[in-house]
């Protein structure tokens, strides 16, 4: 089961976590990317994500499907937000499940790495005195 959603609303972490995993799975890995209150030494007051709607969805689904096939996942759920995201809120959640844990871990890491490299979504950080687009990965 591969499920990919791009939405403006806050992410329902409880629901995504509950939907991940089947009775054949010994491992569920959930990665939650959160809006941090600081970046390169500056205080961040909020984030805003811009997306290339159709293409972001396509690339995100490709990442999730590739990971599912490569690591034999039984479930793979990815939700990414766009628009304003408050500090402490989740901007992305990735939930992977597999019979054994190494696969679930590797798949989740592959997906977040791919998001940060290929999925056309951009983060703008707002500070007390301005804002800037973030162009590099961590």
């Amino acid at each position, binding site marked *: 089961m591969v499920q990919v959603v791009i939405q403006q609303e806050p992410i329902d972490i409880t629901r995504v976590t509950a939907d991940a995993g089947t009775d054949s799975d010994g491992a569920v890995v959930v990665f939650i990317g959160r809006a941090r209150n600081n970046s390169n030494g500056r205080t961040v007051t909020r984030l805003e994500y*811009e997306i290339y709607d159709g*293409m*972001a969805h396509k690339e995100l689904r490709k990442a999730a499907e590739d990971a599912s096939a490569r690591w034999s996942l039984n479930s793979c759920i990815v939700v*990414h937000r766009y628009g304003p995201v408050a500090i402490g809120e989740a901007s*992305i959640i990735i939930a992977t499940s597999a019979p054994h844990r190494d696969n679930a871990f590797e798949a989740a890491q592959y997906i977040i790495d791919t998001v940060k*490299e290929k*999925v056309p*979504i*951009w983060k703008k950080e707002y500070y007390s005195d301005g804002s800037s687009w973030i162009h590099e990965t961590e």
Partner: protein
Amino acid sequence: MKIKIKAFASVREACGFDEKELTVSDGITVKEVVLLLEKSHGSLSDLLESLLYAINEDYCHDDATLSSGDTLAIFPPVSGG
């Protein structure tokens, strides 16, 4: 021929539009379109080195040629997650 340009994030701000139709000569390359845009939107120059391109939602290089009706998206390195 007509093509559609989409600009995102810092490129959108530098160009001052998020979407625009452009009439260009047949067989034009991505790079040539960008040079055209740069003439009218000078602040694009600062971003040139790291720009990414997609034609009809597929990543492409700047030597790709455009066809009538294509949508060319121009954007900086992504930073989602």
